[in-house]
């Protein structure tokens, strides 16, 4: 049950005293040919909540033009917002007669729009017109759009065109949309229409008042600029730390995945309008970002994010840090979280922040951010849509310092598994191919045919190791080769290479550590020798051998030779690569 209108009147009257101290005021004039009284009370209530004091006037019935033109007319020259409220059947008394066209009404509207654009400095809130609920043509589709529905649609195209032409001074109040949302039963008042020329029920007036309040907020710079989102059970269903990438719910073919999927769609729509998107979540950063970067159904990507604080600190501190990083006031922040506790914490510690809790009924989640129009502005510029990018560039510069740490986290989140074993004949083609193609991570760049590799595998004194890798998303396939010649208790590395698709994961460290350990355990090898032969393409591995414990023993044939003892500490296996032996 809605609040009685008399109580709203009383509540507004009770606030008048306090409202005198509001620093923002807004002069609003309604030009109309119908009765819409009541809208003033509802709009005033909404604006008082924003600490804006409206001064509302109504023009006379059907005297829109006179009200604009008269020097002392209602519109005056000092209105900030002029709101139109027009009924077509009041504009043109022949509305509805057979063969009626909207030409006369169109001409009146065009004239009024031009008058408002040229004679006032106000923002003009126009509206769409509501077509007839019943077709006067019955089942017939009228020729040449000679029916009331088509003619109303033509009027509405004219209205939209005028708004485009005069944007951002003109703004559209979409009455047709209010009707769709509420239904005719709740929106329209036929009795009011006939008794008082008042066609709308209060539910309709409330939706309209809410939209008008958003216009005033936008005019007064109150539109929200930053959307800060929690992750688990807000951006997706479930908890990434417990359910994992495959377990969280974001599948648009399932419940509740689809609700979260659609919610993400609206977030991206806001981002496209220039709203800055930030994350604030209690999580391991790498795990949460893993969803953003790699979940196939996650629409929100890193490129959409202006900033994030994913850690175990309290969220009030994190929001303050985000405000500092983005250089925006907390009063332009909207914070969304599923936890009542977190929401309450922010409400108490940072009352300037607008807090929204994820609805318990998940079907109410997708429209959550659009419903209240918190981010509404009167226009979107190219600058707005580039804004996220600008903030990102800045952040990347600032975060370069801590990059090493976050790379480790990132690699850990990939959950790479490496299988390192003696090559078998089935792997010969791929191994030969790698020796022929690999240039960058290749210590000696010796090219071998399939026959060569097959001969190596058959040779007691040659060991060929292969490395096959996969991570949580995909298999990388066979990506590493190590060829070792056995000479008594010594091993000489003939070739070591890694496919470029496996670079940057420290797999090379795992490969060397594992293979040396095998040589020692299985063949009693105590010393390993190796060499680096420089080419035009392999400078990146010039210092590889020293980085895994080898010492220089000399130079020969343009290359550098190295040696190391194979002790118990084969060492160097990164903790974020899991080794599988067979």
């Amino acid at each position, binding site marked *: 049950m*809605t609040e*009685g*209108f*008399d*109580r709203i*009147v*009383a509540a507004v*009257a009770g606030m008048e005293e306090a409202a005198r101290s509001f620093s923002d005021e807004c002069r609003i004039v309604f030009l109309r040919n119908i*009765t819409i*009284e*009541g809208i003033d009370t509802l709009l005033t209530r909404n604006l008082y909540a924003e600490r804006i004091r409206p001064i509302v006037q109504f023009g006379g019935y059907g005297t829109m033009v006179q009200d604009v033109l008269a020097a002392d007319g209602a519109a005056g020259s000092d209105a900030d917002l002029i709101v139109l409220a027009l009924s077509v059947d009041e504009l043109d008394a022949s509305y509805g007669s057979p063969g009626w066209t909207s030409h006369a009404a169109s001409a009146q509207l065009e004239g009024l729009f031009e008058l408002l654009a040229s004679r006032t400095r106000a923002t003009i809130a126009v509206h769409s017109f509501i077509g007839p609920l019943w077709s006067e043509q019955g089942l017939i589709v009228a020729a040449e759009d000679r029916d009331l529905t088509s003619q109303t649609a033509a009027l509405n195209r004219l209205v939209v065109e005028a708004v485009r032409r005069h944007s951002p001074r003109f703004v559209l109040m979409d009455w047709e949309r209010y009707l769709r949302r509420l239904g005719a039963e709740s929106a329209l008042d036929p*009795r*009011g229409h*006939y*008794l*008082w020329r*008042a066609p709308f029920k*209060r539910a309709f007036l409330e939706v309209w008042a809410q939209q008008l309040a958003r216009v005033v907020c936008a005019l007064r710079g109150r539109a929200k600029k930053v959307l800060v989102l929690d992750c688990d059970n807000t951006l997706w269903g479930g908890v990434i730390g417990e359910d994992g990438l495959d377990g969280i719910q974001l599948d648009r073919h399932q419940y509740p995945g689809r609700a979260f999927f659609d919610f993400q769609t609206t977030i991206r729509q806001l981002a496209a309008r220039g709203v800055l998107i930030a994350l604030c979540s209690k999580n391991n950063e790498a795990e949460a970002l893993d969803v953003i970067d790699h979940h196939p159904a996650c629409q929100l990507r890193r490129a959409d994010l202006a900033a994030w604080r994913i850690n175990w600190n309290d969220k009030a501190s994190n929001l303050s840090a985000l405000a500092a990083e983005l250089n925006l006031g907390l009063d332009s922040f909207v914070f969304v979280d599923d936890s009542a506790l977190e929401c309450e914490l922010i409400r108490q510690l940072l009352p300037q922040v607008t807090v929204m809790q994820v609805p318990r009924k998940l079907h109410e989640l997708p429209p959550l951010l659009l419903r209240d129009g918190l981010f509404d502005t009167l226009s979107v510029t190219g600058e707005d849509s580039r804004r996220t990018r600008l903030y990102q560039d800045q952040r990347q510069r600032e975060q370069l310092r801590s990059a090493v740490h976050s790379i480790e986290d990132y690699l850990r989140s990939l959950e790479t598994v490496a299988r390192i074993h003696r090559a078998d004949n089935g792997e010969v083609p791929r191994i030969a191919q790698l020796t022929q193609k690999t240039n960058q991570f290749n210590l000696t760049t010796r090219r071998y045919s399939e026959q060569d590799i097959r001969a190596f595998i058959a040779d007691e004194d040659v060991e060929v190791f292969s490395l096959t890798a996969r991570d949580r998303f995909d298999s990388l396939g066979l990506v590493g080769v190590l060829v070792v010649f056995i000479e008594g208790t010594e091993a000489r590395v003939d070739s070591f290479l890694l496919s470029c698709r496996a670079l940057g994961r420290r797999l090379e460290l795992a490969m060397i550590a594992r293979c040396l350990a095998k040589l020692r355990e299985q063949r009693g090898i105590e010393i390993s020798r190796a060499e680096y032969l420089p080419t035009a393409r392999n400078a990146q591995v010039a210092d590889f051998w020293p980085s895994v414990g080898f010492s220089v023993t000399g130079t020969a044939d343009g290359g550098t030779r190295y040696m190391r003892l194979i002790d118990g500490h084969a060492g160097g296996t990164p903790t974020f690569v899991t080794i599988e032996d067979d």
Partner: protein
Amino acid sequence: MTTPAIEGRFFRILSSLLQVPLEQLGHDTSRKSCQAWDSLKHMHLVLALEEEFGIEFDDAEIADLNSAAALLDAVSRKVSA
């Protein structure tokens, strides 16, 4: 039947919508005697009373309910019906 409860709710609504203190209102308050009670206030009064009491006035009678006594009587009849 007009009960004290109905009367209390009725005059509270009349007072807040006409913005006239309760003590200045009575059964004899009418559109003629009360300047604040204009046609717009009358509309809001009708809508608010219907909402408050879950009733609906007949289209034709609305224009004739021009005093507190007439309105209160119509409300009471519809509530007990």
